[in-house]
């Protein structure tokens, strides 16, 4: 600032900066619909509440039940497996596809226009479509015997989890590869030219130039995947309905069932609070890794 002070004295019009008042309407709105409910869900986790009478304060009852609940342990485990499975499948495909699509050849442009078509379908539409395509009686398994061996993909736990990963990836790889395509296009061309002069081949260029340059996008994309994974509710409801049995009943799904099917809002709030904790830890870790919180321009875009 001191550098500017002399000039400010010479030129009377000072730079008027917007005050906090500009942020107030949005802040209030966000407080009412996001922050207050966060506090609310924590409070409700210490109550028994059926949604009709007023909530009864029960102290740690929900929480002691929560830590002894084997279904919760299983839901947490499946949530984790899905999260890891989704990232492991989607990240490599998205990076390779995005980098490939960043090339300027005409055929790549045409193909990538087709690749992005799943973006047009909502999660509900995608899940319903795949549920029918994978239907054991009339869908692909009944016609393409060599691939499915006549079995019902939704019949087993492993099969259902595989279906959830497959369908989620089908829907979201186009989105993530689009992020990578944009980032890959903004890598300075001179880096590759210098490497080529040094005799680096395609693979070495990819490993030593492309991947490091995509670091921020990887963090952005992973953030989206983690948050998407923790909120994956519609896909489970419409694709496996938590089944077989409760094998794919992930945390958001069991929270929904507990609250809006069995009307046990207090206990559901305990599950919800746990979800909140997981999301916050993940987000803090990822923002620390990315340096978004330093408000520097690396966060251009997002």
């Amino acid at each position, binding site marked *: 600032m001191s550098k500017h002070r002399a000039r400010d004295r010479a030129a009377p019009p000072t730079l008027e900066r917007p005050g*906090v008042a500009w942020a107030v309407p949005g802040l209030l709105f966000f407080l009412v619909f996001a922050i207050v409910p966060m506090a*609310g869900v924590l409070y409700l986790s210490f109550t028994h509440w059926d949604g009709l009478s007023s909530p009864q304060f029960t102290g740690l009852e929900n929480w002691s039940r929560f830590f002894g609940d084997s279904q919760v342990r299983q839901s947490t485990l499946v949530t984790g497996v899905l999260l890891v499975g989704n990232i492991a499948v989607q990240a490599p495909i998205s990076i390779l596809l995005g980098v490939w699509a960043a090339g300027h050849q005409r055929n790549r442009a045409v193909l990538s226009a087709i690749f992005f078509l799943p973006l047009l379908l909502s999660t509900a539409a995608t899940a319903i479509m795949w549920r029918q395509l994978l239907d054991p009686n009339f869908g692909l398994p009944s*016609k393409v015997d060599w691939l499915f061996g006549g079995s019902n993909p939704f019949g087993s736990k492993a099969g259902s989890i595989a279906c959830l990963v497959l369908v989620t990836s089908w829907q979201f790889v186009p989105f993530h590869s689009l992020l990578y395509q944009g980032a890959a296009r903004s890598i300075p061309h001179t880096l590759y030219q210098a490497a080529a002069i040094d005799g680096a081949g395609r693979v070495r260029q990819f490993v030593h130039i492309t991947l490091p340059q995509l670091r921020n996008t990887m963090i952005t994309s992973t953030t989206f995947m983690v948050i998407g994974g923790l909120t994956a509710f519609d896909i489970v409801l419409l694709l496996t309905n938590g089944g077989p049995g409760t094998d794919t009943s992930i945390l958001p799904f069991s929270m929904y069932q507990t609250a809006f099917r069995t009307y046990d809002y207090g206990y559901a709030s305990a599950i919800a609070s746990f979800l909140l904790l997981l999301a916050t830890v993940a987000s803090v870790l990822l923002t620390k890794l990315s340096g978004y919180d330093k408000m520097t321009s690396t966060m251009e875009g997002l």
Partner: protein
Amino acid sequence: MRTRPNYLAGAAALVWLVIIGVPLYALVNTAVQPQTKYTDKGPVSIPSTVTWDNFHTVVDSGFLHYIWNTVVVAVATVAIVLALAVPISYAVVRGRGWITKGVFRLFLLGLAIPSQAVIIPLFLIVNDLGLYDTLWGIILPTAAFALPVSVLVLSGGMRDISNELYEAMALDGAGPARTLVTLVIPMSRSAIATASVFAALQAWNGFLFPLIMAQSEDTKLVTLGLYNFVSEYGANVPALLAAVLMSAVPILVVYLFARRALVAGLMGAGGK
């Protein structure tokens, strides 16, 4: 400098084309065939008879009304998000002091709030406001949960405006309001487009808020309409998939007319 073609990558891209293409082909193919043919031949048959009956079934069930509701929700969400997020981002980028920094951190943290986790109190709030089973009961929470990403995208865009331009505005005697309207908004057009795309996608993809905050036919959105279709027309797969196909029409229209903006918007969101 010419590079030799990368055959391996090309082959992999073709594999992905099959993975994307076959289900989409099966979707369209099933939606235009009679039910008897579907049960006989399955989703990947060669099309011989094309029928529009499935689409008539869907339209007769009132599906167009759900599409209209979704369009209303998406437009209102984008309008609210821009009206709130643009001033927030402006204050965050140009304001001074710990409060504006705190505001930014709050929205960063807000990125991680899963809507599922707060749906129970949110349901209470919407109820208390008398908005249960109205489109506003869906629009307001959707907009609130689109705010963090929008603030992040918009403040990223506004940070790139050079200080000299602000100084020039100040020399002209412009206050913060005029600077926002004549400098900041025009200069962050692409960030505004990106934020709009995100908010619209969120509204159009939304499932939980329409499921919890509304129940009547009047306030049903496309995603919920599809969900109900599963139980109503579960046995009639061609009609079900015709509904799935129709649900993509609004975004397809956007895609056809604003493909460049849509793709650029999503691409710009990746960060460098």
